């Protein structure tokens, strides 16, 4: 059972624009991604939406499999810019690592 | 009077032919290819009913094109669909077409 | 009348609704699809007009088969289709009693572009009456 974290979005703002909320979870990004086939990047975006910070940190290695090729951003129906969101998460996670 | 009209029409048609020269040329070359293709399909079908892939392989034509002709010839009553074989239907010359062929011969 | 005119004994009567089946038959014509010529199509508003006796009389007169081509449930006359279906049920009962093969009477729904269904119906009825011949009820 997961409780949503209402404040995570605020925490992330420092690292990224909050376009993650524009995502309507269609899954195009996950299916178009040439690199990662494991619901990535939507899984990460959804975790941002529901504030699942721990899940993001747990799965953070996945972020660096993204090469920023931009195909997800290019095909996103909502223009939520998944590519930039992942870049933002890299920053967030790296900052977290460095803090610890 | 009638002759005069006829003359006028003749001149106008000549003019039109000049104007549409390239269109007419491309249409007639299209028509010639179609005529050959259709003749090939019909000749092949004289050997018995066949499916689209069989026809296409038999006369070295892409399957989608063979189907396009088939749909058309069927519409104009020259070919009929007969039984099904696997996932494909077989086509054969229609009675009308067979009679026509006979008459030709 | 030329002598060759009277040669077809196996006649099929088709009662075709004005809004659906009759234009459907026209559509078959537009497609130039041939079907047996022993078919006579009557344009009707709603086949519910015909009493049981009409059908029996047709057979008595020598009609070999009747196809009622209606609009089905989409009939523009509210409730008419139900009444028609009921009517034909009792015609079937009468036919059984009179030992008329009930296959001689068919109720079907034909729409304005139901070419294939139309041709099928005609073909089946034609095959049937060619097998069993005209009804022997001549009065």
């Amino acid at each position, binding site marked *: 059972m*997961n409780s949503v974290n209402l404040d995570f979005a605020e925490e992330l703002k420092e690292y990224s624009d909050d376009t993650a909320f524009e995502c309507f979870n269609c899954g195009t990004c996950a299916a178009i991604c040439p690199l990662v086939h494991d619901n990535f990047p939507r899984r990460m975006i959804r975790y941002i939406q529901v504030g699942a910070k721990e899940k993001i940190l747990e799965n953070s290695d996945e972020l660096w499999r993204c090469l920023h090729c931009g195909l997800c951003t290019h095909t996103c129906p909502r223009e939520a810019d998944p590519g930039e969101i992942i870049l933002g998460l890299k920053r967030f996670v790296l900052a977290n690592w460095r803090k610890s | 009077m009638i002759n005069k009209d006829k003359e006028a029409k003749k001149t106008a048609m000549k003019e039109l032919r000049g104007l549409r020269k390239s269109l007419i040329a491309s249409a007639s070359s299209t028509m010639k290819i179609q005529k050959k293709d259709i003749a090939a399909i019909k000749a092949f079908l004289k050997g018995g009913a066949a499916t689209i892939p069989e026809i296409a392989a038999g006369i070295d034509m892409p399957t989608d094109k063979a189907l396009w002709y088939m749909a058309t010839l069927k519409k104009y009553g020259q070919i009929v669909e007969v039984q099904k074989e696997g996932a494909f239907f077989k086509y054969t010359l229609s009675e009308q077409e067979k009679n026509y062929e006979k008459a030709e011969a | *009348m030329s002598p060759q*005119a009277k040669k077809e004994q196996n*006649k099929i009567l088709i009662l075709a609704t004005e809004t659906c089946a009759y234009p459907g038959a026209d559509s078959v*014509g537009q497609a130039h699809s041939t079907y047996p010529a022993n078919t006579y199509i009557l344009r009707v508003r709603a086949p519910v*007009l*015909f009493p049981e006796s009409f059908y029996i009389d047709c057979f008595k007169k020598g009609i070999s088969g009747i196809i009622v081509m209606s609009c089905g449930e989409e009939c523009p006359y509210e409730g008419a289709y139900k009444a028609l279906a009921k*009517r034909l049920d009792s015609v079937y009962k009468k036919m059984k009693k009179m030992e008329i093969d009930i296959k001689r009477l068919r109720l079907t729904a034909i729409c304005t572009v139901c070419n294939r269904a139309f041709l099928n119906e005609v073909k089946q009825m034609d095959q049937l009456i060619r097998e069993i011949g005209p009804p022997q009820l001549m009065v």
Partner: protein
Amino acid sequence: MSEKNQNVGVYICYCGGNISDHVDVEEVRNRVEKMPGVALARTEMFMCSDPGQEMIIEDLKSGKIDRVVVASCAPSLHETTFRDAINRAGSNPFIYEHANIREQVSWVHHGDTATDKASVLIASATAKAKQLKPLDPIRVEAKKHTTIIGGGIAGIKAALDIAQTGIDVTLVEKSPILGGQLNNLDRLAPSGEKASEVLQELLDQVLNHKGITIHTDCKIQDVTGYVGNFSLDIVTKSDNKKLTIDTGAIVMATGSVSYMPFEGEYGFGRHEQVITLKDLIPILKENKSAGSVLKVNGKTIKNMVMIHCVGSRQIPGIHQPKENGQLNEYCSRTCCAAMLNVSNQIRENFPETGIYEMYRDIRTYGRGQEELYNQASKNKVIFMRYEADAQPEIIPSPKPDYPLQVKIKDSLTFNEEMEIPADLVVLATGIEPDDVSGLASMLKLPIGTDKFLLEVHPKLRPVEFPITGVFLAGTCQAPMDTGEACNAAGAAAVKASALLSKGYIELDPFVAEVDTDKCQGHGACVEACLKEGALELIEVNIEGKIHKKARVTAALCLGCGACAAVCPEKAIDINGWALKQYEDMVDAIVSDGFTV
């Protein structure tokens, strides 16, 4: 039918080869010419051409013929052409019969069989033609007046539309005020107009229109009559005043109500923090409080959950039916946009109030609605999706800072179970039709399985009932939003206007007619009649004796012929499509044209 011999003129078309290539047209003419009753038979290259038509007109004018058969293409193409020609000759257009020898002969049969069949079809058409008689359209006087039942947005719009074309209107509303559901709404989705302003704009016009009479707080007690001549008895609820309205047409615009959740449905009635969208809207309307967080009943709403599809899209076996067994299987169409609209308002005015929307499918189908959904996402409304068989659960919160907790198996989060704390849970309750069963049975209006009023056909006649002269508009038919209800009202209004614009109504002449001499008053026809009121038994005094006779009300008769089939005396038949005609046609067919 009179027994005197009719003179039938038969005209056979070559159709420029279309017919003559397969049918020996001249041979057909030879055969037809000899048929009894045929005064003359002619052929022509194109019957539909001017010379062809002129030929018919000449023959009619000269008195050589008084019945016409044209054998050519399908009747759908040229029946009207030849009827018009006959009209031009000064004859009644209904003395005409068509033989279809192109679509049903020359295009489908070849050779001798085609020629034979063409002859037989002409023989059969001739047999019918001999039984034809002149017919006149039935004309019913109609009151240039329409009654609208229901004073919601659809009723108001319909009233205004009809009145503006010069037809008087009476608007009957059961409640004391006009406006219906719009009175309960605030900002309308998706464009955000104020419901009150939209309503006022129409009301101003309606109240000032001289052609519109308004009766509020009224009940309809009885409806009688038929198209053009209805009569409504109404009574005012407060002072029991009675009133009769004579009217030419009726528009049903009786509207809808909001679904009421049962106790315990998503915690409704058990937790005070669970309310419906309908309850929330007036709170928002009045909530003028400044500040960045929404307050409801004085309580701060930090986070709220909105649940879609409450009382809509219900599935047998999953959802609980109402006491009357009713299950709302339909989509209420308007709630998705309404919810998103409210969410946007809250997020924009009270940014510190968080919102979670739980949906099955977001149905922002209409113009500007998808943008509303997108905007809600931009406003950081968080969406969660549940399946019909796994509805969100509302329980008291285990944590002290929120009263409630909503549990959902969220398919967007990979089917994980999620828990959302909430200060408020809002249910998007669906639309249900207002109960008009009394009125419906008075007017014999059909009701669908979804309990909404049922139109004749959603595409052919979407705003009409099978009862001629009665129309429907708005949410009494199905859920719809304000714009759609107004469109429906416009469509109903145009039908009513077209019907009444002339002051009389012309009906098809193809109706049942009773041969009173033959009629024995069995009443079988009345029983068989599909249309209530079209046939009745009346008592007639013939030479001092009372006889029962059937009587047709032409304005109500459908012309289906159900009556003709059951009359033992064959005393009733359909004009233009008589049973007797068909019998003769069959005779002509079986005898290959000999007995005509």
